[in-house]
């Protein structure tokens, strides 16, 4: 029960952060991908099951709140969650280099997967060009990577706090 509540709170927090507070954090349309960080964090700490399920739920929500091809984010975040879960307890999650590397590669997989889907189904892409390396896209990845240690630290702190006091 406690676990389920913690997952729901986790989900709600990141949804709010990404979808409602994202626009306040955005600078010229560039803001970090908090959800990707959350999925990777879950993969490192909870394993495949938690990460892929959360990835699916986050992706589905994001798809519902976006104008892109429905299901693209659901699929990508599920796959990323699964692979992140495979590295559960094999990385030192407190090590900043590991966090940064994981998020960087996850971003690359996310971008490649997304591009592949839009390459196959071009009708929903709008102005998005598959496999095109743009400044905005690169900056988004950079911002996400830079903010990762901070998000991990907050999540670790919250986890330790809940274990101790709740």
């Amino acid at each position, binding site marked *: 029960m406690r676990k389920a509540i913690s997952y729901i709170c986790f989900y709600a927090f990141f949804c709010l952060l990404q*979808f*409602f507070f994202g*626009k306040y954090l955005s600078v010229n349309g560039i803001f970090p991908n908090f959800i990707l960080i959350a999925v990777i964090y879950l993969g490192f700490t909870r*394993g*495949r*099951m938690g990460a*892929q*399920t959360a*990835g*699916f739920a986050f*992706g*589905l929500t994001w*798809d*519902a*709140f*976006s*104008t892109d*091809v*429905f*299901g*693209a984010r*659901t*699929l990508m975040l*599920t*796959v990323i969650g*699964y692979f992140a*879960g495979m590295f559960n307890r094999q990385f030192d999650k407190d090590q900043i280099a590991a966090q940064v590397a994981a998020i960087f590669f996850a971003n690359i997989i996310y971008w490649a997967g997304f591009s592949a*889907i839009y390459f196959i*189904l071009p009708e*929903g892409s*709008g*102005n998005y060009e598959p496999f095109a390396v743009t400044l905005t896209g690169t900056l988004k990845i950079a911002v996400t990577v830079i903010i990762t240690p901070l998000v991990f630290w907050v999540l670790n702190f919250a986890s330790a706090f809940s274990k101790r006091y709740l």
Partner: protein
Amino acid sequence: MVNSNRKNKYADIIFIILVAAGFALIIARSTPFVGLIKNFVYYVSYPNVNAANKIFQYAGSFAENIKSVVYIRQENLLYRQKNQELTDKLRNYDIVMEQYGSLVKLLDVPKMKDTQSVFARITVREPNDWFQWLIIDKGSEKGLYQELPVVMLRDNGQLCAVGRITEARGGSSKVGLITNSLSAIPVEIKDKKISCLAEGMGSGMLKITYIPLNANVEPGDEIIASRYSSVFSAGMPVGVIKSVSKENSLDFKTALAEVYFESDILYEAVILVPKGDVK
């Protein structure tokens, strides 16, 4: 260790299910209507130019779909109407073909000496008087009068006795059938030279009376009009013996015969009119 393996196995299965669901969502994609609503909700919560463009894009596509649905519906109505027309035409065609078949059959009516055939359609048959009488659509205007014989063409191309005209009016005539309970016609057993009388019974059967006691009459014997008949020409087939009475009688025996004319499919009749009387 075992517990961990089991957990991993479940995770793999769940992963496959989730990926399949993701693919299904992508493959199914959203219809323009769903896309329109989704983008509208998105625009309300997070207004931007891209979302607005998508809304217009989906709205256009949705409107196109609605338009095509309306067109298809309209076309469908048109086709339905055409279909109905064609069905009616086909039905009429079937009726015409049926009539044509009947008329072709009537062309095969054997020619009889000094008589002329007048073809008439049966217009009225009362269910209560099914075996008593009927009305035909030819009357005195065509030269028909009382006591003329009415026959029909059988499948084997032969004529058979049906009845006689009892009333003739301008454009119609009433025909009293040989099965009428008031009818009695002199007949004979074919090839046996046995004269007798065929009386109507108000059913599809005739009562054959006045058969001599010693006459060799058997079921299957054919009844034909006798030369004493004032209505039908001698030898006109009437019916076939079905049973012979086994009652002991002093002078005569009786039999039951079935008429040849098929009551259920009697739609046209042929009236044999002496030459010169036809108008």
